[in-house]
């Protein structure tokens, strides 16, 4: 394989002293990856998962690897650890120098001594990354006994020290617990404790917070940043979240389709992205600090299939600046010291982008104020009884507790909150997949709970749902055409002969092609499957669509496309959305009104721009403070106020204001009664006595 790095600008460009924006840069790097290639042999051919990747990491530095799924970011990290599956993966070329050693040349036994001792790794899924049948203590003490030959007593003492370091209270008794007794955030803290056990020089964190809620994510990342600074540990953080990069990373490497696209300090890459992909990515993320004035810019198309990638620049099929020369692989060019871009047109991109053409589309006029209320939720509650033990007392999980909301025709009502706050249950109540314990849910002025089954059928036609995981919600044995036609058949909306035509029409409406009706879901990409889910929902001409985390599983560039599609459809068809999501920026972008939920209750409810620009409830404020914004300049100037603690058990909600155990403003009064909802501004409802 030919070396695609121009020698004069190759790896040395990274080590230039002038690039030492960070103090650590003056020290020699702990890790230097040079021209790394990784391939997987599959039954369909060779997948080139990483191609010509080069970057370096210096002591005390936090380096981010950003990219969408399949970009090679995780694979390259596993290659450094030499943890790739031995049968299928190959490293045909490349050098990985760590602390003076060439890792790819070491024997397995030599490498084993480095793993966990000098390089530690933290994985994405805290739920499955710890062994369920072993005590936490053993799992933390394991590297200590293995690498440092500590005896049981010393290892236990160190384990307690480590748990304290990562902010786990009562460490002594935690050691005797099993992973399932800890929350996700706690488990990730334990993983970090394991990683830090032997004072490694390098910590690789592969999407460490993707599975966690935003307030917990902030706690974990703050912890990692702080520890890396204090202990001088270099950190590689692999993520798809640009906000995290902006807030925490010193340097960033953007990967696209197995290759490095752009690399530089976070400040420079964010303020002056020069690779068209990096630019597109930054434009495509919805931002918490921006209103919903403009449509999201998107990168059209989808990342290439690495079994048969396009020749030359991998981004060419999606690049709006592509020229003939792009059929050749672009070299790495240092556009400024320490800022490297792999694009033939890197020097012109800024000029080109300024030209009118694909400029931001006009503001949208989603004014629904005059319209009638289509969905009216009044004091709705849903309690689930839970019985413990044979004769145990019956207890109640108050999943939804006295919720009042409404949505007007043609607008989007956003519902945010962390997992377990009850937002999905509320969605189920609206769809009447569950019956409310109390209260009313009125759809077009009819209380759904009063309807009989037969009457509900007619309502279901006008109210549809789009789920998070497009794959599991589409029947794998049906073709796309059958999937979309199914609701039409059930509700008999069209005479049979017209169905095929309508399917084709719907496919085009959601930006797919009519021929795709014959495909099966597994033949489509994630974004396309979600479009199929949308087409299926539209098949019966609904008025209201409940979007339950509808874009959460999609990569940034695809997510932007789907959000735009949802907005376009809303305008064309006058749809009303109940948009349930945990991603605050997405909710801000798409919603006209937003409700914030915590432990079954709505704590704040206001027009989107009001809520995000002047949040009144301490929980909303905490959520917004915890969610990072993809702009290092803003991030670094922003005061960090990270709330501590985790969501209490819904079985034993705190008395009075449910937020008081975590609330920075809490007083004795807060524990006395559930705060009444007050209107603090026009349509700005807040349930807090001190707001």
């Amino acid at each position, binding site marked *: 394989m030919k070396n695609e790095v121009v020698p004069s600008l190759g790896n040395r460009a990274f080590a230039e002293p002038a690039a030492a924006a960070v103090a650590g840069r003056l020290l020699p790097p702990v890790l230097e990856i040079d021209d790394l290639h990784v391939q997987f042999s599959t039954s369909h051919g060779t997948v080139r998962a990483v191609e010509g990747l080069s970057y370096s990491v210096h002591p005390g530095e936090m380096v981010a690897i950003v990219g969408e799924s399949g970009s090679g970011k995780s694979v390259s990290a596993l290659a450094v650890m030499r943890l790739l599956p031995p049968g299928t993966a190959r490293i045909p070329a490349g050098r990985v120098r760590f602390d003076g050693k060439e890792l790819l040349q070491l024997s397995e036994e030599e490498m084993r001594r480095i793993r966990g001792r000098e390089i530690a790794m933290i994985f994405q899924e805290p739920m499955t990354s710890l*062994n369920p049948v072993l005590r936490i203590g053993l799992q933390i003490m394991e*590297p200590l006994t293995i690498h440092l030959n500590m005896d049981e007593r010393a290892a236990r003492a160190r384990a307690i020290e480590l748990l304290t370091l990562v902010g786990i209270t009562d460490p002594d008794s935690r050691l005797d617990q099993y992973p399932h007794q800890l929350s996700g955030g706690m488990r990730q803290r334990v993983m970090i404790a394991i990683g830090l056990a032997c004072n490694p020089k390098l910590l690789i964190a592969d999407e460490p917070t993707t599975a966690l809620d935003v307030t917990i994510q902030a706690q974990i990342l703050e912890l990692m940043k702080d520890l890396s600074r204090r202990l001088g540990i270099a950190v590689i953080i692999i993520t798809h979240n640009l906000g995290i990069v902006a807030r925490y990373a010193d340097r960033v490497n953007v990967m696209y389709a197995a290759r490095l696209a752009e690399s530089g300090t976070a400040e420079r890459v964010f303020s002056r992205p020069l690779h068209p992909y990096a630019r597109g990515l930054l434009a495509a993320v919805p931002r918490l600090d921006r209103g919903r004035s403009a449509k999201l810019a998107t990168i059209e198309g989808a990342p290439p299939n690495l079994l048969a990638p396009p020749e030359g620049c991998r981004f060419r099929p999606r690049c709006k600046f592509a020229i003939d020369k792009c059929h050749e692989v672009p070299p790495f060019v240092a556009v400024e010291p320490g800022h490297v871009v792999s694009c033939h047109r890197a020097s012109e991109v800024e000029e080109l982008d300024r030209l009118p053409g694909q400029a931001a589309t006009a503001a949208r006029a989603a004014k629904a104020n005059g319209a009638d209320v289509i969905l009216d939720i009044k004091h709705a509650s849903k309690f689930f009884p839970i019985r413990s033990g044979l004769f145990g007392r019956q207890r109640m999980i108050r999943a939804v507790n006295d919720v009042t909301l409404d949505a007007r025709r043609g607008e989007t009502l956003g519902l945010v909150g962390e997992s377990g706050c009850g937002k999905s249950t509320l969605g189920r109540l609206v769809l009447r997949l569950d019956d409310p314990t109390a209260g009313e849910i009125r759809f077009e002025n009819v209380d759904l709970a009063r309807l009989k089954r037969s009457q509900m059928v007619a309502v279901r036609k006008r109210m549809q749902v789009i789920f998070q995981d497009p794959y599991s919600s589409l029947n794998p044995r049906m073709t796309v055409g059958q999937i979309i036609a199914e609701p039409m058949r059930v509700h008999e909306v069209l005479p049979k002969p017209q169905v095929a035509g309508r399917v084709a029409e719907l496919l085009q409406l959601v930006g797919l092609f009519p021929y795709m009706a014959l495909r099966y879901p597994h033949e489509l990409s994630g974004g396309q499957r979600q479009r199929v889910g949308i087409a299926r929902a539209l098949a019966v001409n609904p008025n209201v669509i409940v979007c339950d985390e509808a874009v959460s599983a999609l990569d940034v560039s695809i997510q932007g496309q789907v959000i735009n599609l949802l907005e376009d459809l809303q305008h064309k068809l006058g749809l009303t959305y109940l948009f349930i999501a945990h991603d605050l920026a997405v909710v801000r972008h798409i919603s006209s009104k937003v409700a914030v939920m915590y432990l079954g209750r709505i704590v704040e409810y206001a027009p989107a721009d009001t809520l995000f620009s002047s949040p009144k409830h301490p929980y909303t404020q905490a959520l917004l403070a915890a969610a990072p914004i993809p702009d290092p300049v803003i991030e670094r100037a922003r005061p960090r106020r990270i709330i501590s603690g985790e969501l209490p058990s819904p079985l034993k909600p705190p008395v009075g204001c449910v937020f008081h155990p975590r609330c920075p403003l809490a007083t004795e009064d807060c524990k006395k009664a559930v705060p009444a909802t007050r209107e603090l501004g026009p349509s700005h409802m807040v349930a807090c006595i001190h707001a």
Partner: protein
Amino acid sequence: MVWFLIRRLLLVIPTLIGVAVAVFFLIRVMPGDVVVVKLRADGAAVSEETIQAERRRLGLDKPLYQQFADYMVGLTRLDLGKSLWTGDSVAREIAIRIPVSFQIALMATIIAVLIALPLGTISALYRDTWIDHSVRVLAVSGLAIPSFWLGMLIILALLSLFNWLPKIGYVSIFEDPLTNLSALIWPAISVGYRYAAVSTRMMRSALLEVMREDYIRTARAKGVWTSLIMRRHALRNALLPVVTVIGLEFAFLIGGLVVTEQVFNINGIGKLFVDATARGDFNLIQGLVLFIATIFIFVNLLVDILYAWLDPRIRLS
């Protein structure tokens, strides 16, 4: 966990009642009349009157609901009734055959576990190498070869190679361990092979499954060496499904060694079952079915307890 066990124990009673009711009526659909079979067994000319008299003596002339009531009342006193053939109590008929069947099942289990755990582990560890392939060939043959046929081969081999045959007739292991073992080891091996094959395959696939888990990757990233990963991180998790297979096989062996017992001429539960069915001995069949159902239930309970011991998620919930 304690509650869970108590609840399971309480459930045993309705389950057994259900089994008893079902078996009572199902048997009576079967053709064959024990009295006719018994009295006319050797072609003797027995008069219809004699037959009716015998029926009356055994209570078979009573209406069905009466018979059912008698049977259920007997059960409440743990009385399984008398064999229609020998006139002995059913409980006794079963009891005298338990030791031999139980011993064979236990020995077969030990053989299977001793073979399956190491072989399955090695096979998974050296996946797709010649070692793995040989183990899998061995396992597949174990599944393909019927136990009784292997038993016949063993007998032939013993006879032609050593001109020796195990003693016929059961001697308790406590009286004469050597004679006992030298007789029972052969049937135990012949059923143990199949048993081992099933468990080896289970062990291998469970272990391969576990080796793909995230926590194994975590262990590797910690620098744990392979043998310790296997011992500490993988085995316990992989054992969970294997325990189920072993337990169910054990329960099956107690009553299911129908042909193998014939081959080795062992008077165990399996043989008793065949005899009872051939003779249409309703009472004995009912008793046997109840007995085997009880075994299954308790083995299942034991499996659950083992599960809880292996997996803290069950133990502590």
